[in-house]
């Protein structure tokens, strides 16, 4: 050995797992690609354009802010791209192009950089961006949705199951099952005066009950599973999202506790409380609830965000259950048809408290 060779002196350990922040983030992006492909297939290049606009805006915005803050520009770590992509995934394909741009800028600035950037934000930036858009442009966020070619937005494709010639029988019921998302239909049917109205229109047939049955039958669940229904860009295809989730679980990038307890809580509670008021329950109900809305996207890709969720295993179970509980409360009782994003935001805020309450006892320490 040459005496002049400098040896590296650094603290142990001297070997390291290959996982880095960068490959975690880009792997999550990769896991979202199937959902993006399905969205593009369903809604055309418009969905792809909106998604990439969100992602690129987020990256550019983060780079500019980091430049202004005079800190190293770290946009190649993928986290801003991921935030922008997730934000766009929460917007529907008929939205104007400026919507994801404004949302991404808000998510990166107010949601992330004001707190010091990656690792310091208290709530999920993408969801904060979505909440901001919902509050500021509710009509753009909830109106002007585009149906998947050749399919009903509600997922009920065979209207003759409900009534022959539904369009003439009850225009209001027809409007509902053809132009609203599955969860919107479910929400409307929880309103007894609405049911009374369409039933009266149809001359006393239990149209409400029939639509609800149509919503939870196998045919509809299949649509929900593949995603040819109405919804936001990234949330519709359960299949595509599960594919990505399986990859992340296999790669040990996300941990199973939060998604399992989140989805599990929604499953159990919707089985117990999900039926129409006054009618019984069915095994199809919980499947309807876990397959619809943003649950799969939320549970696997947003409620598993590292920074905004509890550190402890016990805490993650509480977090998952809390998200599930709030989701069901909003879906069944609250004012919105869907509650996944607000419940995650709420539980994000609870995270420091959960961490404090679930601090583990060290190996060999006795519980006081």
């Amino acid at each position, binding site marked *: 050995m040459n005496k002049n060779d400098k040896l590296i002196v650094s603290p142990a350990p001297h070997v390291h797992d290959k996982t*880095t922040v960068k490959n975690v983030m880009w792997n999550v992006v990769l896991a979202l690609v199937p959902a993006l492909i399905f969205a593009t297939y369903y809604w055309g290049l418009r969905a792809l354009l909106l998604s990439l606009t969100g992602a690129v805006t987020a990256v550019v915005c983060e780079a500019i802010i980091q430049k202004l803050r005079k800190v190293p520009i770290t946009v190649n770590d993928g986290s801003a791209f991921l935030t922008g992509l997730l934000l766009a995934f929460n917007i529907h394909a008929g939205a104007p192009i400026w919507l994801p741009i404004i949302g991404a800028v808000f998510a990166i600035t107010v949601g992330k950089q004001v707190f010091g950037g990656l690792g310091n934000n208290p709530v999920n930036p993408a969801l904060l961006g979505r909440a901001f858009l919902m509050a500021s442009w509710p009509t753009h966020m909830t109106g002007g949705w585009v149906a998947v070619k050749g399919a009903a937005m509600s997922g009920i494709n065979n209207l003759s199951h409900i009534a022959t010639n539904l369009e003439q029988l009850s225009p209001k019921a027809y409007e509902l099952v053809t132009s609203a998302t599955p969860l919107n239909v479910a929400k409307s049917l929880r309103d007894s005066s609405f049911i009374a109205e369409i039933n009266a229109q149809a001359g006393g047939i239990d149209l409400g009950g029939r639509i609800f049955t149509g919503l939870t039958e196998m045919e509809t669940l299949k649509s929900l599973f593949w995603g040819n229904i109405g919804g936001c860009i990234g949330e519709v295809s359960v299949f595509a999202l599960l594919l990505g989730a399986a990859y992340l679980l296999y790669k040990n990038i996300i941990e199973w506790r939060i998604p399992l307890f989140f989805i599990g809580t929604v499953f159990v509670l919707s089985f117990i409380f999900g039926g129409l008021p006054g009618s019984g329950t069915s095994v199809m109900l919980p499947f309807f609830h876990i397959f619809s809305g943003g649950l799969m996207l939320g549970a696997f890709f947003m409620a598993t965000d590292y920074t905004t969720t509890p550190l402890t295993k016990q805490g993650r179970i509480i977090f998952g259950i809390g998200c599930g509980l709030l989701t069901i409360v909003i879906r069944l009782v609250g004012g919105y048809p869907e509650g996944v994003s607000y419940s995650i935001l709420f539980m994000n805020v609870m995270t420091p408290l959960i961490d404090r309450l679930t601090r*583990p006892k*060290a190996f060999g320490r006795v519980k006081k």
Partner: protein
Amino acid sequence: MRLKTFPGGIHPHDEKHYSAAAPITKFPSPQRVIVHLSQHIGAPSNPIVEKGETVLKGQLIAEAAGFVSLKQHAPISGTVTKIGKFLHPTGAMGMGIEISADGKDEMIQLGDEENFLELPVDVLKERVSNAGICGMGGAGFPTFVKLSPPEGTSIDTVILNGVECEPFLTSDYRLMLERSEDIINGLKIIMKIVSAKAGIIGIEANKPDAITLLRKLCAKERGINVVGLKMKYPQGAEKQLIYATTHRKVPAGGLPMAVGVVVQNVGTAVAIYEAARYQKPLIERVISVTGPVVKQPMNLLAPVGTLFSDLVEYSGGLTQPLGKAISGGPMMGFALPSLDAAMIKGSSGLVLIGAKEAKSKAEHTCLRCARCVDICPMNLIPSTIANAVKYNDLDMAVKAGLNDCIKCGSCAYVCPAQIRLVQWIDTGKIRYAEAQRGK
């Protein structure tokens, strides 16, 4: 085979293939050795020789400086050429005695007590103490102290640690294959000294031949069991090994004897056997010289005090420029500033890594991904401790487990943000100790 283990832990590549097949080779007597006075936990030994004095191999050259201290012996015969500061294998400078060889390798008179197990406990203990034996797995606690539990403590189980969970190292593995009977004899001596009924040899599943061999040899021994353990780091950490083999939890801040257990490394067992039977002092040990850039990875039986540079030269030198020289294993070992350090009684390995692999990445901010929480074998929150230390919040650091950390390095191994968690925690431990002293 049903394997036992502990909760938490990680799965680094074991990298044993470099040197696992290399039989123990005797290193020829070196020209020069440095016997460090701090080879162990406790007070540094007091030298009893002076510069210029000639010593025999095995001759006592430093006395124990108190109860928790150690005797040191000359590993070769020759002349004391310097008593002063030398590079210690922990990377710091430490006092040591330098001996230059006379080439005669003349040894003190040893005995041979064939019925060593019949010797009274006092004599056995004295022989262990006189031989200057300390734990050879790395921590280096004086063995004599471990074998002298305070009045009223009863020990029922002796566990021999043959786990060797650090990647790369194979010295214990080779010992288990080549000195298996001596290991069992050592175990019996320890069991006799602490009057334990049960003996356990814990071995990780990546050494199936060692498990099979020792099981065969122990089949006729009463009370001795060989336990196969899952391959998982830090399986060989004392508390984790005790839990895996006996399901007992050593209380926080307590010693294994609190749960009736004494743990010794398999190498230490061999040294105890040699001390009890031959009154041979601990002056040589097996060390793995291994890693991707060493030409001929080896397991060398070398005199304590041999310079690392001599070991590397004997192993054929380097195939690529050296980036890092690790004394010990890569998980808990020390990166040395040069190869001029000399091995001590606890040196189980010298791992040599190339310049490219040795480079470490920059620290990123914590993402709160909780990987460190999920794998911490002590059930702590490493990221919170590190962060608390960073912002000087020692109360928070203690609440998150500062004082329970065993510094195994698993957290830093998995951290995707490359945060030097162990270093932060270690800093915290030092600051905490200072704060306690100040009170």
